């Protein structure tokens, strides 16, 4: 027994566990709207912009690069929204252009003088590196997101289903779009250090996509998405501890298994 619970003696393991319990339900929650709004590519681009955010922070001599990362991501998200709403070219293409451009700038700055290895941990993330201060950030964003969701979800859903119709019912369409983008940016940036750029999007998309396979209304959609997300997070953390594999990828592997199970069993469950 003592061997099974031995991990709890380590402070970093406790922090990791708390982080997983806070952030995975948020991923499940946000993911539902990202999938419905078909913004998978958008959140992916946001994840990649973390590199640029850090680079900008270093250039301006900011002490805590988390701050520069968050600020940059919020501006980046609002910019993407603004350009996307103009409808001049396909949104996919625009996001791709801006994303590649910002990643290139970030990489160029960070790799100057051959120092990139210092930042490579950002690519796969390291859940054990999470500090108490970062946990406080996570708790704050958790509370803010839940409040936003309770008061804003209906409006977000209305905008997602039909913009003009939402407008005719006096929903503030652009404000909701921008608020949502800002929340996605905040959550992605505050968790990217321990989840990693490569897989953060999988964590946002997979639980919601799995839930979509088996649910018929919004309540089921959210419930299953949160359960899948939390489950993959916890199981992924423990398995990675005992097998000595990076945590992020382990969580994604488990979330993918859930996706394929729901995909093949989906119709049977719905009936």
């Amino acid at each position: 027994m003592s061997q099974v619970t031995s991990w709890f003696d380590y402070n970093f393991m406790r922090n990791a566990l708390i982080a997983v319990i806070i952030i995975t339900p948020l991923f499940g929650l946000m993911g539902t709207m990202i999938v419905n709004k078909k913004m998978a590519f958008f959140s992916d681009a946001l994840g990649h912009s973390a590199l640029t955010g850090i680079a900008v922070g270093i250039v301006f001599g900011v002490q805590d690069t988390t701050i520069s990362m968050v600020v940059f991501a919020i501006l980046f998200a609002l910019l993407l929204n603004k350009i996307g709403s103009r409808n001049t070219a396909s949104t996919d293409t625009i996001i791709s252009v801006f994303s590649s451009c910002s990643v290139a700038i970030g990489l160029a700055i960070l790799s100057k003088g051959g120092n990139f290895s210092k930042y490579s941990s950002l690519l796969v993330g390291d859940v054990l590196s999470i500090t108490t201060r970062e946990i406080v950030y996570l708790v704050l964003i958790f509370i803010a997101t839940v409040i936003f969701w309770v008061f804003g979800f209906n409006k977000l859903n209305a905008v997602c289903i039909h913009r003009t119709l939402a407008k005719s019912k006096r929903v503030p369409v652009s404000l909701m779009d921008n608020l949502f983008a800002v929340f996605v940016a905040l959550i992605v940036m505050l968790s990217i250090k321990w989840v990693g750029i490569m897989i953060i999007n999988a964590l946002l998309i997979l639980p919601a996509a799995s839930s979509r396979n088996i649910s018929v209304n919004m309540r089921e959609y959210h419930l299953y998405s949160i359960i899948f997300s939390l489950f993959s997070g916890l199981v992924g953390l423990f398995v990675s501890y005992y097998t000595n594999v990076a945590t992020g990828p382990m969580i994604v592997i488990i979330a993918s298994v859930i996706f394929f199970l729901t995909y093949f069993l989906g119709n049977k469950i719905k009936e």
Partner: protein
Amino acid sequence: MRKIIEPCGFHCIKMNHLGVRFGDQVILDDVNLHFHCGSLNAIIGKNGAGKSTFIRAILDDIPHTGEIEFKDTKDGHMQKLKIGYVPQSINIEKNTPVSVYDLIASYESNAPVFLHKSKKVYEKIKNTLAVFEAEDLIDKQVCNLSGGQLQRVLLSMAIMDEPNLLLLDEPVSGIDQNGMELFFQTMDYLKKNYDLAIILISHDLDYVAKYADKVILLDHATIAKQGTVKEVFQSPEFDHVFGMSSEEKWIREGEKNESGNILV
């Protein structure tokens, strides 16, 4: 919804000098119109004539010039115009976990649909759906509805907060002949039994001729002709817009030849 057996006829919606432009391109130019409650008004015209832009301008969805007034002509006081809008289609693809309740409640209530089903809102939605005999659909998934069912759901949503104006954007696509007849009968019922004016964008000239009180023909970003069905359908402007082009005549001739076995 408050039901008034006969529309009062005193409410009047006036659109003055409505115009829309994107850069140098004029999409809608100086449109002046006048609608009364209890009337069914059909907007017709070729694709690209500015019909959808017209609807979006009324909804304030795009920047436009001109203004829309809503007046009680009996005592002349102005009111805020409430618009019920039925879009052409909605962005709900297959397998989307949105039920009819979720759809309507998202627009009509603040009770978060992801958290719980509010009994009060549920009853209210069900009652409105009953107007169009669609109350059984309330727990169905929106993506599994037929074209006609979805339309009845959207109509219920549009009349839910007692609009003064019902705006329908080509809602008859993807619906069979029976459904079309039913749809226009519903429009007729609405205008006779509720206190509202209806503006309908339609491609089906036969039904427009049968049911509309007023027809507005849009062509090249402006009103080419407006009036009763007879006035518009027999006008030279109507012939100009909907008359057979020489190409169509040629095709028709060809068909006649084939059926008559006269080969050239």
